[in-house]
């Protein structure tokens, strides 16, 4: 630590501790008012929500405490609270009351209001107000002219004594700077211990989030590629094919040039068909436009093995869910067509009780090994990001049943 940074650190520590005073006072006031009025009104029921509100006092107090860390030039620790899974006041309240963090924070608010706050006020008085009063002696004496009562104890009448007081004040202030910083650091440490989540918890949460972000980014990238192919290569190929087609009209049939143009034209058409299949595998437009039932019916149509899709009416789900569901079915259909020797494949999709369930069953020879191909493993990973599961049963002799479950909520 550079010496020049010391005064700045002391000033930060002082600001940090001083900011705690109004916070502690506010916490005390809120707790007292809410519990007292809540308890008094409890017989007429109005008090119950007031008491509930009192129990939530810890949340804003803890939030303010975390933000207060900025005064020490430290980033505020992340909150321990998690987001409620549904919008609205009631789900929010229910979520908060069942969280451990809420009660821990209430405990902290009570500790702050009853113990920490008075102690800090006393410490600040001792370390700052006292030297401050001593330092203020000479100007006070100059204003009054005859006499100043230093700290309401000693009477000082001459400027030399007054300046001696001020010098003593400065010395005290210098001496106080170290305990001030130590107090602020201890205080911040207490906040970290009580109000910040454990590191492991944060890491897991952050990893889960970043994985979900990666999947979203992956999804967005697929769509971008699909869009680029659609707007670029496909349009150009169609245009090329049209130009060749028109040119062919102007050439005498049977000539070598006509034959060559016909071949070029056929090549362009074949390239278009290949590109169309490729794009379809990247991100099907029907999924975006019409949702899962239409997309699954479409996938069934394209399956070389006769397939039927039984989907009833499903609501629309978030893009990541629909996309994962669609590609699970596509992979299962591809596997059935490639390995199972099945004569029929059945697809079903159901949404029930916050859970989208997809099953693909075939009447093939069974014995499918989920670890053999990367396809299913990749899909299981994709599902697990959505906290979904994938189960495959495929006894030798069949039938093979693949079942995927994704907990999700329909889009509003």
């Amino acid at each position: 630590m550079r010496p020049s940074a010391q005064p700045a650190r002391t000033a930060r520590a002082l600001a940090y501790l001083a900011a705690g005073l109004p916070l502690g006072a506010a916490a005390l006031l809120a707790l007292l008012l809410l519990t007292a009025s809540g308890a008094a009104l409890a017989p007429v029921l109005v008090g119950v929500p007031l008491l509930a509100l009192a129990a939530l006092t810890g949340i804003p107090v803890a939030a303010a405490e975390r933000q207060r860390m900025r005064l020490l030039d430290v980033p505020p620790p992340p909150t321990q609270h998690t987001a409620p899974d549904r919008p609205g006041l009631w789900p929010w309240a229910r979520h908060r009351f069942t969280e451990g963090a809420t009660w821990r924070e209430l405990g902290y608010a009570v500790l702050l209001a009853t113990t920490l706050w008075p102690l800090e006020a006393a410490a600040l008085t001792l370390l700052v107000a006292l030297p401050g009063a001593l330092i203020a002696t000479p100007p006070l004496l100059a204003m009054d002219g005859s006499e100043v009562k230093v700290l309401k104890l000693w009477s000082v009448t001459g400027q030399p004594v007054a300046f001696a007081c001020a010098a003593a004040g400065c010395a005290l202030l210098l001496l106080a700077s170290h305990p001030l910083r130590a107090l602020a650091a201890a205080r911040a440490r207490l906040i970290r211990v009580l109000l910040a989540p454990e590191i492991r918890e944060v890491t897991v949460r952050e990893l889960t989030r970043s994985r979900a972000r990666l999947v979203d980014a992956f999804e967005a990238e697929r769509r971008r590629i699909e869009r680029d192919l659609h707007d670029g290569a496909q349009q150009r190929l169609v245009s090329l094919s049209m130009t060749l087609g028109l040119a062919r009209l102007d050439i005498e049939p049977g000539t070598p040039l006509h034959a060559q143009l016909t071949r070029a034209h056929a090549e362009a058409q074949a390239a278009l068909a290949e590109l169309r299949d490729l794009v379809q595998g990247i991100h099907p437009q029907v999924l975006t436009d019409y949702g899962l039932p239409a997309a699954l019916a479409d996938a069934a149509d394209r399956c070389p093995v006769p397939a039927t899709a039984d989907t009833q009416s499903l609501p629309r789900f978030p893009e990541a869910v629909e996309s994962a569901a669609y590609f699970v079915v596509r992979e299962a259909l591809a596997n059935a067509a490639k390995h199972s020797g099945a004569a029929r494949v059945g697809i079903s999709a159901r949404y029930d009780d916050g859970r989208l369930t997809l099953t693909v069953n075939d009447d093939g020879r069974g014995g499918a090994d989920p670890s053999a191909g990367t396809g299913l493993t990749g899909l299981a990973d994709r599902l697990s990001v959505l906290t979904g599961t994938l189960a495959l049963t495929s006894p030798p002799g069949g039938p093979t049943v693949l079942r995927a479950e994704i907990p999700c909520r329909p889009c509003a």
Partner: protein
Amino acid sequence: MPSLRVVLAEDSVLLREGLIALLQRFGHETVAAVGDAQALTAAVAEHRPDIVVTDVRMPPGYGDEGLRAALALRESYPGLPVLVLSQYVQRAYAAELLESGDGSGVGYLLKDRIGEVEEFAASVERVAAGRPAVDSEVVRQLLRRHRDPLQRLTPREREVLALIATGRSNAAIARELVVTEAAVGKHIGNILAKLDLPPAEETHRRVLAVLAFLRS
């Protein structure tokens, strides 16, 4: 075929210019060529064309704006022939289109078909004349499926139905299958009976048969 007045909606300038040239080559006039669904609606109101040719995917959302606009136009101008071009075969698109209005004068083709210039021009004329034109790729996909009510049709009848869906006349079907027109008529009669279609005017029943085919 008399010259058709066409309103064209396609957001790719390259394809738009190409399509104008193609239509001109076959003697049809493009009275307006626009790049988005909103402009399409305005152009139809202004020009009252003989046929609308539109892309499915257009700005601003690059979703199915063109199809939605086409369906809305069929609502506001009953009987307006509409030919929708799509980058992919989507049975849902075709079914929605054929269900609009009385189902006559709608076409749904893969964009690739523009390359088959003569076929494409014929499809434009067919749709303008009030007949359906469903892409053969859609039809091929449907034929792979084995399900009621198409199950009741013989392979030959399915073949005939597929050709009706792509918009062929009885004479054209007869030529394609190398049978007499009378035989085609008999097949069609069987198809309509087997699909339990209510008695109606001939064109309309053909459309209904195609619809049954698409919905199966």
